């Protein structure tokens, strides 16, 4: 037992002291924070104000109708033919002419530009003109703007899960999907990442020939177990760092933005809410972060965390024991490639299945995907935020443990023969034979 601890210690410390460990531990939180912070930063950034000259022959628009953060409108008079030649020299980015009969001829509006203007300028000019035009048309039809506003219903449904015993939990399927997606992706990446780390560790020991010295001191299964647990702990450490650093960094960025951010956000909301269409799309515009927060409030966090750790660790043990068996059978990483696909296929397959599971977490495919030991770690974690019956969870966990025991039995038998086998091209048939070699 003491020797296994020593091995765990070595595997853990040598990996945690590596530069690459810290790079990946720091890079991921920075990227996540960037995803969260960049949109805010872009929104806060003072935008360049475009100047537009406007010729309103219909005389419907007033300065107050054309207020926009990004565009400044100046009314002008004169002839369209002359003005369209001159606006650029006066320093305007664009010149807009509105015909007299704009309400009946909406296509008569022209935007002249010196350079190609961006879509956003075209859209904001169109939107401002359109809002006023609609307002006028409604008035003509006898509908006041108050009546119009009051007809803009904002339907934002709330999903409520009702369990058989009548217990209700409000849930947000959009948010659950995001949470499920994140957990599925993290499991997918880490199973591949740490599984292949175990494999490379085994190959390193075999190709550097230190293996024979080590197994004259400890049993092969002790070395294998120590390595798998040690690398697994590195994985858990990395998760912990990711969580703590991401949380810390996002807190720091929020602090840095401070009040300014709040102002900008409310400003953006105000501007958006002035235009009637935006009211309808507001619920979709809610930030993913607040959705996740909403889900986090409605789900059983300790259960999710416990299940995540369980599925990561047992799933990782299952796959890494198979990766270790492959590593023991070959002498170089390139030689390993012909065998790794067989272990990688179920991981990739379970990630693909997880896409279906996310769409329909209670379908038959999702059920079986979350039961079969090879696909269950990713798929059960994807199903979990939507709510899973307790018996299914327990069955899935039990099956995963059985699967792990089976895989580790096979792997340990291949491993103990493989690590001492040199100079022989290994075939599948050969691996099969090793299973039945005596000690």
């Amino acid at each position, binding site marked *: 037992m003491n*020797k296994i601890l*020593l*091995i765990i210690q*070595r595997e853990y410390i*040598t990996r945690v002291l590596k530069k690459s460990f810290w790079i990946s531990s720091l890079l991921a939180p920075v990227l996540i924070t960037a995803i969260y912070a960049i949109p805010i930063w872009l929104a806060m950034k003072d935008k360049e104000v475009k100047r537009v000259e406007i010729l309103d022959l219909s005389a419907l628009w007033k300065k107050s109708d054309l207020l926009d953060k990004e565009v400044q409108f100046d009314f002008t008079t004169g002839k369209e033919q002359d003005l369209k030649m001159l606006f650029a020299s006066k320093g305007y980015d664009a010149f807009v002419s509105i015909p007299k009969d704009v309400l009946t001829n909406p296509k008569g509006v022209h935007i002249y530009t010196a350079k190609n203007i961006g879509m956003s300028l075209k859209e904001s000019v169109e939107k401002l003109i359109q809002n006023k035009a609609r307002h006028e048309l409604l008035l003509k039809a006898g509908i006041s703007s108050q009546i119009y506003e009051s007809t803009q219903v904002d339907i934002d449904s709330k999903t409520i899960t009702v369990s058989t015993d009548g217990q209700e939990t409000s849930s947000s399927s959009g948010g659950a999907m995001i949470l499920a997606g994140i957990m599925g992706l993290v499991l997918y990446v880490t199973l591949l990442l740490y599984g292949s780390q175990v494999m490379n560790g085994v190959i*390193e*020991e075999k190709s*550097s*020939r*230190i*293996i*024979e*010295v*080590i*197994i*004259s*001191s*400890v*049993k092969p299964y002790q070395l294998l177990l120590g390595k798998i647990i040690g690398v697994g702990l590195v994985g858990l450490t990395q998760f912990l760092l990711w969580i703590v650093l991401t949380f810390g960094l996002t807190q720091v960025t929020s602090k840095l933005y401070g009040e300014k951010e709040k102002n900008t956000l409310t400003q953006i909301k105000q501007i958006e809410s002035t235009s009637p269409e935006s009211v309808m799309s507001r619920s979709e515009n809610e930030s993913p972060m607040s959705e996740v927060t909403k889900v986090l409030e409605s789900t059983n966090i300790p259960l999710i965390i416990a299940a995540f750790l369980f599925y990561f660790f047992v799933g990782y043990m299952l796959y890494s024991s198979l990766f270790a068996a492959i590593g023991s059978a070959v002498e170089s990483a390139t030689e390993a490639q012909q065998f790794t696909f067989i272990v990688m296929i179920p991981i990739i397959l379970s990630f693909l299945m997880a896409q279906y599971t996310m769409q329909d977490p209670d379908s038959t495919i999702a059920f079986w995907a979350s039961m079969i030991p090879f696909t269950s770690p990713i798929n059960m974690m994807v199903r979990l935020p939507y709510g899973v019956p307790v018996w299914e969870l327990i069955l899935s966990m039990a099956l995963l443990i059985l699967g792990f025991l089976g895989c580790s039995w096979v792997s340990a038998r291949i491993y103990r023969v493989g690590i*001492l086998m*040199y100079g022989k091209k290994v075939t599948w048939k050969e691996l099969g*034979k090793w299973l039945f*070699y*005596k*000690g």
Partner: protein
Amino acid sequence: MILSVRQVVKKYQDHLALDHIDLEIPKGKIFGLLGPNGAGKTSLIRIINQITAPDFGQIIFDGEPLSAKHVDQIGYLPEERGLYKKMKVGDQLLYLAQLKGMSKSEAISKLKDWFIRLDIKDWWNKPVDDLSKGMQQKTQFIATVVHEPKLLILDEPFSGFDPINANMLKDEILAIKERGATILFSTHRMETVEELCDDIALINHSRVVLAGEKVEVQNRYKQHIFKIRYIGNLPHELGGVDILTVNGQSATLKLADGIRSNEVISQIITHVDLLEFQEIIPSFNDIFIQVVNETNSYE
């Protein structure tokens, strides 16, 4: 006896690696395990190291059946040896010593002694990657002996050593023997056997074909050939003696069975002034080749 191998059989899928091997390795001696490639030496060594288990037979270590607790009393330097390339020399040796059951503090103090002894004091923090081959061999040797094993198993220890390191290694092996440990050599190099070993066993085709004390084995293979140097003219015929070669003032003679050297000497001195009369002891190289060829022709 530090180690008794009794009737050990090891079968692999398609061939018999060890066929009822019996060996007695006396305590405090240097024992040479000889044999051509593929004879079964490595299979036997792996069984003694408990890396694999025999299919049949028994191994007695220091009076007890060999078991997991004996691992810490054996030191093993495999023929194909390596180290963790990225680890520092000191950390690596400390790790290997602890795997052999030493406490951390004990391992550190013993390792420091060895670093001073082999004059490598400033290597502790060097990564193995930076070491030359000879430096790596020193490191591996320390890893093999630091836990002061009762039995030291060295598989082709001199392969790849330069003459200076080979001499250092030889001296250390003798020093370890002085302290009462037993050394089991596996080797092809007959000069090593002749120089260092007290006892030998020769394995060929999975069987022990020759075993015993070095001197006794050499006597067994003596062919009663003598070399003489003299002044004068040697007659063409001598009673009970076959003259093999004559080369100026020296010759080689083969004595017929039952003829004692004293009888031959008394004959010779009547003809010439005898300066030297020496028996030619067969080299282990010759014995090795002879025995291997003999056993091969039985097959």
